[in-house]
Each structure stands twice: as structure tokens, then as C-alpha cells.
């Protein structure tokens, strides 16, 4: 039973991350997701410190703000200080992460609620220790599961409701602006959701590994998807697949469960990449009559 709860909870984490990751990737902001997931550390430390309880919902929402603040800081550094985008990301998240670590070592004296290693890669096997039990015997499952369900509901609603907005924002910001859409508002809505996912998944998968769930499955799906909904679907499939395979692999090898899950996600990516390249090569050698539409598109990166 405990096993099933772990797989289900991790699958929801993967699902949440996959959905948001698709939009991050298409907006070419994958590393902003990375930065946010590290930058929420100080927020989480404060949340734990103030609540003394692992999961006070209100305080987790407070920690979410730290992530939004980080994305704001990145924006500010690149726009006002004119530091190039990737450097702004690097400076912001290392700084906030360092602050978080200092806070842990100074504020948490003797309080071992936050395990430093857990911060980086989580410890999903522990979720069953924190159960919700009603009437002393009716077992309803681990608390982490419910937290993830809440996140899933929020994300599902926001993306389902604002699908068109997120889509046009990801496709071309200038075009969205020309339609009169407030792109800033949509951008920060996306950042808030990403921040929320990382905060809510923190205990389960840790700061660095949640990035794996955010980026790798969507990238795998991006390799072959031709429609956004298709990409969302396959990203979710790859995410959940990595969870299931990774879990059993970890149990078999007696290693970190989350680590194994993301490793499997990474292997999936490279497998799909290689298979796709082989298929492409085969296609190219078998088709000799070029159809009229085959004129290659100039790639942006070439210019």
C-alpha cells in the first residue's frame, strides 16, 4: 500500500511539472524554472521556522512568493541593470540559495526539520510517515498526496482556463501584446504556478530534482510533438513513466527513489532523441521525390 501511495504522489508531481514545463520550454525559460526551484529555499526555511509544522498551507503560499520574487529579480537585473539574461538567472538563484543555506544553519539550530540533503533531492520514501488518519483508524493516505492533489487542482484549473492565453504568450510575446493582451500579467501568472509547484513538491522530490521533472519530460515530448496538446499529453506520459520505472529500479538497486526517477527521465530523453535521429535518417534515404513543401525553414539560431 505504501508503495502505491509513493508512486501515485510522485506521478502527480510529475504531472504538475510536465504541464508547466511545456510552457516554460516553449517560452525558452527552462532555466528560469531551475532558478525558481532553487530560490524558494529561503521562503521554505522561513515557512518551516514560523510554523514548526512541515506543511502549513498558508506559509507554503508565502514561500511561493519567494519564487515569484526571484523571477521578478531576474527580470529586473536583465532589464534595469542590463546584465545578460543567463547571467541574471545564475546570480539570482545562487544568491537566494546561499541565503537559504545560511538561514538554515543560523535559524535552525538544533531544529532538524529541514534535512539539507532532502532539500536537494527530497526523500519520497518518508511521505508515508506523515499520514492523515481520521478517527484514529481510518487511513486516508499520506499528507503529501493531498498537497499534490491541491497543486494539481490549482494548476489544472489555471491552465485549462487560461490555455489560449498561455499558448499565445508562448508562441510570440509581441503578437500577444499586439492583440492587447497584458503579457506581463500572464508571464507572472505562469511564474507563480511554477513557483507553487516547486514549493509544493519540495518535500517530495527536492529542489534540484523537481527541475528534472519540469524540463526533461516536456523536452522529450517536444522532440516529436506537432501540437501543443500532444506535447502536454506526452510530457505527462513520460513524466509518469519515469516515476514508475524509476521507483522499481530504485527499490531493486536500493538507491534514492527520486534520483532514479529523474535518471530514467534523462535516459528516456536521450533514447527518444537517438531513435528520432535514426528514423529521420532512414526517412531521408528512402524518399527521393521531394514534395514541394520541403523547402527547409531557416532556423533562427543560424542567423
Amino acid at each position, binding site marked *: 500500500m505504501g508503495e502505491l501511495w509513493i508512486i501515485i504522489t510522485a506521478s502527480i508531481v510529475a504531472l504538475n511539472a510536465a504541464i508547466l514545463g511545456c510552457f516554460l520550454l*516553449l517560452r*525558452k525559460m527552462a532555466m528560469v524554472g531551475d532558478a525558481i526551484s532553487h530560490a524558494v529555499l529561503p521562503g521554505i526555511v522561513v515557512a518551516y521556522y514560523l510554523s514548526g509544522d512541515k506543511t502549513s498551507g498558508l506559509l507554503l503560499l508565502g514561500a511561493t512568493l519567494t519564487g515569484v520574487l526571484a523571477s521578478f529579480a531576474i527580470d529586473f537585473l536583465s532589464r534595469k541593470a542590463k546584465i545578460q539574461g543567463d547571467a541574471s538567472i545564475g546570480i539570482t538563484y545562487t544568491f537566494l540559495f546561499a541565503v537559504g543555506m545560511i538561514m538554515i544553519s543560523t535559524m535552525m539550530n538544533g531544529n532538524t526539520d529541514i534535512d539539507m540533503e532532502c532539500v536537494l533531492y527530497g526523500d519520497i520514501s518518508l511521505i508515508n510517515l506523515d499520514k492523515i488518519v481520521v478517527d484514529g483508524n481510518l487511513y486516508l493516505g499520506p499528507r503529501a498526496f493531498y498537497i499534490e492533489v491541491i497543486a494539481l487542482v490549482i494548476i489544472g484549473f489555471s491552465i485549462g*482556463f*487560461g490555455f*489560449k*492565453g498561455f*499558448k*499565445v504568450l*508562448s*508562441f*510570440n510575446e*509581441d*503578437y500577444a*501584446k*499586439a*492583440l*492587447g*493582451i*497584458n503579457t506581463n500579467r500572464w508571464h507572472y501568472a505562469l511564474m507563480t504556478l511554477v513557483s507553487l509547484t516547486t514549493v509544493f513538491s519540495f518535500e517530495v522530490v527536492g529542489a534540484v530534482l523537481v527541475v528534472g521533472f519540469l524540463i526533461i519530460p516536456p523536452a522529450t515530448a*517536444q522532440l516529436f*510533438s*506537432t*501540437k*501543443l496538446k*500532444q*506535447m502536454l499529453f506526452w510530457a505527462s506520459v513520460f513524466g509518469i513513466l519515469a516515476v514508475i520505472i524509476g521507483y522499481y529500479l530504485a527499490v531493486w538497486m536500493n538507491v534514492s527513489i527520486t534520483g532514479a526517477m529523474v535518471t530514467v527521465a534523462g535516459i528516456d530523453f536521450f533514447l527518444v532523441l537517438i531513435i528520432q535521429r535514426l528514423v529521420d535518417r532512414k526517412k531521408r534515404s528512402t524518399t527521393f521525390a521531394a514534395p*514541394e*513543401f*520541403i*523547402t527547409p*525553414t*531557416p532556423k*533562427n539560431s543560424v*542567423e
Partner: protein
Amino acid sequence: MREACAIEVHNLTTTYGGAPVLWDIDFELPAGHIIGIIGPNGSGKTTLLKTIMGLLPASSGYVKIFDKDLEQIRHKISYVPQRESVDWDFPASVFDIVMMGRYRKNNLFKRTNKTDLEIVLQSIEKVGLTKYKDRQIAQLSGGQQQRVFIARALAQKADIYLMDEPFVGVDAATEHSILKLLKEMRDLGKTVLIIHHDLQTVSDYFDYLVLLNTRLIAKGTPQEVLTEENLTNAYGGQLTLLAKVANLIKVNQFPIREKDVDL
């Protein structure tokens, strides 16, 4: 009789990184024409279009569309960005992109209705892409990609179309079919404003021209604009003094208008 004015640009100055790239641009464009914006590279053509569309802030001056502010009338204007400015690897089909033409600020949260669907299909039909409607946009030729943009603009059912270099990377046949379409639109009373760089074709394509080189050089019919003198003025390099002053303004981060500083 005076023709109706579609776009009024009044005393417009736009800066980039502190230095003015457009100086006191001032013109009115008649409705119901295909209008070309021409000028050398770096003369501020794209900046002008983006400022009209509100994508860049004006440092001074204003733009009126049919005598109204942009925000009041945005739904009447369609903007077609440069083809290179878009990530064509985006996972979307021709249909998806054209459907974006139906997106509005206030219908983002609503479901697509039947009218939208019909308009989108008609627009795709008009540019002759019905066969490719479900194809991913990266798998189209340059000309076809440009036609997707045109279809999206058509789907917007606008009165004014602002197009940034729609003929770049397009084969001759497509260029002519696009032009035919634009002429049909004009005959329906639409106004089309196009950034163009090929001087050879200018007089065939446009009824009205704006010649630009950081400042307005000339405007009017092709005969009026394409004079030896105007072309030398536009293509003979920037005015040294103007460029020097622009640089001074940038170095000192000087306000471009007195009104920016309340006295």
C-alpha cells in the same frame, strides 16, 4: 474632397537605449490603400511599426487610428511580425496559428465558437492552405509560412493591417498571390501598411509611400516620393549632425522632451 485618414502619426519620437531612432515623424495615411514604408537598413521602419502598434513606447508625440487612441481600436488592427521573429518549431498546426487571430483580450477564457471556426477555415481557404491546415508550421515552405501569417491577419477581421516585411523569403508566385489578396482587401476598403525593402517593385505594389531614414524623408504617391533627390537623401547615409546629437543624448541619458522634466 479629403480622404479619410486611417493612421495619424503626430510628431513621433522613439528612442532605443536612450538614443532617438525616429525623429519627429509626422504623417497621415489615407484609408483604403496599400501603403509601403521604405528606407535603408536601420532607418527605423520596424521601430515605426512597433510604435504604432504600441509595442514600443513613444518618447514624444502620439499615434491615432481612425482618430482614436490605440487601446480603443486595437481590435481593428492586425499586426504581422517579421517571419524570423517567430519560433517555427512551436508545436502548432496551421489551423492553431490562424485561430490565434480570433483571440481577443476578453475572449481568452471563452471557448471557441462556431463563427470563429468558420472565419478561420475561410481565411485558410483564401490563402490556399486548406490542404495543409493540419500540418505543423515548421514543415511549411517560407512562402507558406508567410501565408499562414496572412491568414491569421485575415481571421482577425481588422480594418488596418501592419505587416513587417511580408515578402522576405517568399517565392515569386507566392509574392504575387499575396499581393493579389492584399489588393482584394484594399478594394474592400481595408488599409494595408507594409514594410518593404525592394525598391524595384515599390511602384508596382503600392499606391502610397512613406520614405524613412530615422526622420521622414517623403510621403505621397510613388511618383512624388521616388525622386532622385529623395532617394539620395534617404539612402545617402544618415545626417552626421543628427547622428552626433543622438549620440550625445544617449551618452548623457538626456530627456528627449522638456515635458519629461517638470519645470
